[in-house]
């Protein structure tokens, strides 16, 4: 019976996970310069970059280089000691190119999290400001389908522990509670009309004028444009109060409304 039982079990599991992967964003078509730049990077942090998997991002070039040039760039990455594993971003042209190169196109998650013209160092929606250009952090882990990736608001239903809501390039309005262990993130300002017990991060792309408003303050953490404050104990003067948070020359301010 046990032999039979074994044969009934699947031969493998297919799982999706999110991993941080370095992204080589090409700014000009020059394979020789690319080798030089990447070699310098690998030398500076061999532990991190030697045989590191990287994706090649051609989206910042005015137009897609021809196949021979792309081949040369892939070769340049290899000769610098890294391993190209795919192409980033997805116009249909890139897709066709990826197919010709026999490489996967790693597109979907990036497209969700970066503005179309993302020169501003793609600040991850996390309370860390500067991220090295070559090694962008993976996008927000653990986003559940129920939590819409872009939302003007998340009306009515609470943001539960473990869920994330991200409003890209706009404000976020949450008309319910944000639980402990939940995260609400916006490139603009955040308004929470229930209890804010979790984390709120406004100005995720670096907008220092973004603000956080909430009607019942019990947050674990608030951040604006990467400047953050954690609250191990909720300050007595703000607990349960309606407050707003803003940045005043790099300092995160909180005041009752």
């Amino acid at each position, binding site marked *: *019976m046990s032999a*039979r*039982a074994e044969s*009934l*079990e*699947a031969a493998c599991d297919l799982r999706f996970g999110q991993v941080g992967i370095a992204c080589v964003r090409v700014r000009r078509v020059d394979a020789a310069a690319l080798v030089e730049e990447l070699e310098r990077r690998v030398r500076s942090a061999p532990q991190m970059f030697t045989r590191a998997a990287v994706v090649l991002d051609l989206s910042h070039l005015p137009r897609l280089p021809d196949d021979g040039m792309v081949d040369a760039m892939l070769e340049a990455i290899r000769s610098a000691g890294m391993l190209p594993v795919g192409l980033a971003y997805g116009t249909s042209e890139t897709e066709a190119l990826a197919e010709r190169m026999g490489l996967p196109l790693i597109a979907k998650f990036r497209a969700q999290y970066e503005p179309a013209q993302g020169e501003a160092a793609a600040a991850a929606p996390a309370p860390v400001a500067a991220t090295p250009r070559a090694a962008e952090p993976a996008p927000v882990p653990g986003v*559940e*389908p*129920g*939590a819409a990736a872009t939302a003007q608001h998340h009306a009515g*239903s*609470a*943001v*539960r*522990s*473990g*869920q994330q809501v991200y409003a890209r390039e706009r404000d976020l309005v949450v008309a*319910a*509670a944000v*639980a*402990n*262990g*939940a995260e609400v993130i916006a490139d603009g300002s955040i308004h929470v009309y*229930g*209890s804010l*017990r979790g984390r709120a991060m406004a100005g995720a792309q670096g907008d220092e004028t973004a603000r956080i408003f909430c009607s019942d303050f019990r947050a674990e953490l608030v951040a604006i444009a990467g400047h953050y404050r954690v609250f191990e104990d909720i300050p007595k003067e703000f607990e349960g109060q309606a407050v707003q948070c803003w940045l005043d020359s790099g300092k995160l301010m909180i005041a009752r409304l």
Partner: protein
Amino acid sequence: MTEIIVVTSGKGGVGKTTTSASLATGLAIDGKKVAVIDFDVGLRNLDLIMGCERRVVYDFVNVVHGEATLKQALIKDKRHETLYVLAASQTRDKDALTQEGVEKVLNELTAEGFDFVVCDSPAGIEKGAHLAMYFADHAVVVVNPEVSSVRDSDRILGLLSSKTRRAEKGEAPIKQHLLLTRYNPNRVEAGEMLSVKDVEEILGISVVGVIPESENVLAASNAGVPVILDENSNAGQAYKDTVARILGNERPLRFLEPVKKGFLKRVFGG
């Protein structure tokens, strides 16, 4: 139409199996045809609480893998004609269950004319818990009046509204029922325990029942009798009220007030 109810919590030891047993029994007392399934493969307990542990021949995993028919594996309750138990396997692990297999079993139960299927979820948010909630129409989220249980329940409520068939197909959401168990009004009054109001406020939904902490629960579990059958215990009566509310009847919440010790007890202790 068969209604599938998942009893879940995230955290372990809050009373999921006790609740599953009493809920299934309560529905059967009401004349409904009920199957209660233990999804806790590897750590089966439901058969003990239901008092049928010595009658388990085939289990849920056998049926999922086609090693036994559903009819062979369903254990008829010795007290109630319309109540059946499907035990978990103690010797396998949670990966022995598959989504297709679970769906097949639930479809068969539907075809057999069951009114309710109660799915007793394992703790955690891994595969077993996911499969237990995936096909549900109702969810009874069991929570204890303490912060870690409340947070885990919050997580589960989030998963119920995103990681279930109803959510994935964009159908009407699962009906969520919050059940507060091991409630001790005296300790709430002393500020040692969260109150019903605290829990409702944090989770943003109202309770379908409050089961008082009671010695009878442990005694009933050890005896293999669902506590709902213990007419003399507050917990049993509270479960009866809860089942009635889930069936759409109104019942006032009981046993929320602290029990004042009498004069003699105060003098002599007790």
